[in-house]
């Protein structure tokens, strides 16, 4: 005997009510929204690092090309640049991006102090 759609609808409503009750027991992991914001901050920081890294590499390349006499290889063992010690990273506390000498200090300047909340 075929059943009417009314019976089906009634059965479905009963099923849906049970289903909703079961779903109500499921809740998001604690602090999911807090973690989302922490991850967003971490991603923003990585993007800034990547951009700063590209910028620093480009600036370094330009500086090298400008300062290098034609035909002279700064990697050569007897080249003055290879013999001179580089500035220590900590000795370059730049206060503006234009005053940063090393790539590391430029990155440090561009990177905000941040924290990452690990998954619980």
């Amino acid at each position, binding site marked *: 005997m075929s059943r009417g759609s009314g019976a089906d609808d009634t*059965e479905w409503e009963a099923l849906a009510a049970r*289903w909703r009750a079961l*779903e109500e027991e499921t809740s*998001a*992991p604690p602090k999911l929204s807090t*973690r989302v914001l922490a991850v*967003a901050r971490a991603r923003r920081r990585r993007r800034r690092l990547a951009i700063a890294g590209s910028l620093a590499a480009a600036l370094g390349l330009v500086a090298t090309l400008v300062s290098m006499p034609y035909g002279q290889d700064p990697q050569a063992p007897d080249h003055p640049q290879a013999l001179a010690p580089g500035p220590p990273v900590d000795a370059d506390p730049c206060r503006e991006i234009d005053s940063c000498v090393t790539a590391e200090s430029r990155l440090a300047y561009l990177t905000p102090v941040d924290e990452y909340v690990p998954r619980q």
Partner: protein
Amino acid sequence: MERDLLAAAKAGDEAALEALFALHQDDVYRFARRLTWPDADAAEDVSQEAMLVALEKLGTFRGQSSFRTWLLGVVVNISRNRQRSERRRHAREAASAHDVDGIAGQADASAETEELGQIIEVAFSRLPAGQQEALHLREISGLTYDEIAVALGISINAVKNRIHNGRRTMQGLISESLGGSYGVWTDE
């Protein structure tokens, strides 16, 4: 209240953004949980990724639908992208088939709540993705047909068809799992 939170969040207020997400995180997670069942880690990843995408694209939200509708639509997109991974899909199908066999053999007319929950989960997991999305948004998230159409980017008629077919399929699967005694618990 939500309108104020949204305005503040768009202006860059992180506390407002966190409060806005906190309002909807259970809805988002439940929906993601169903769409990625049985992988709980995937549900968490999808929920998190959906909120991150929403955060990035918040400026493009014009308020023409509710924020909740928009956010659940993002969950659908993230979940669909994830499902394109063949490996995950195969793993899920294998797990689903295994569970159906086991539950069908165990279930009886006096199914406990936990068993019923498993039966519903399995039946839902066997629906086509489009029916899952529409049915969950309707029955669990409580969206209207219009809102579901916006969230899924389909016509209202398509929404109605998916919901209708999804209901019938789920009813059939559950009845089958319970050995044809589907009606015994509808009077509770």
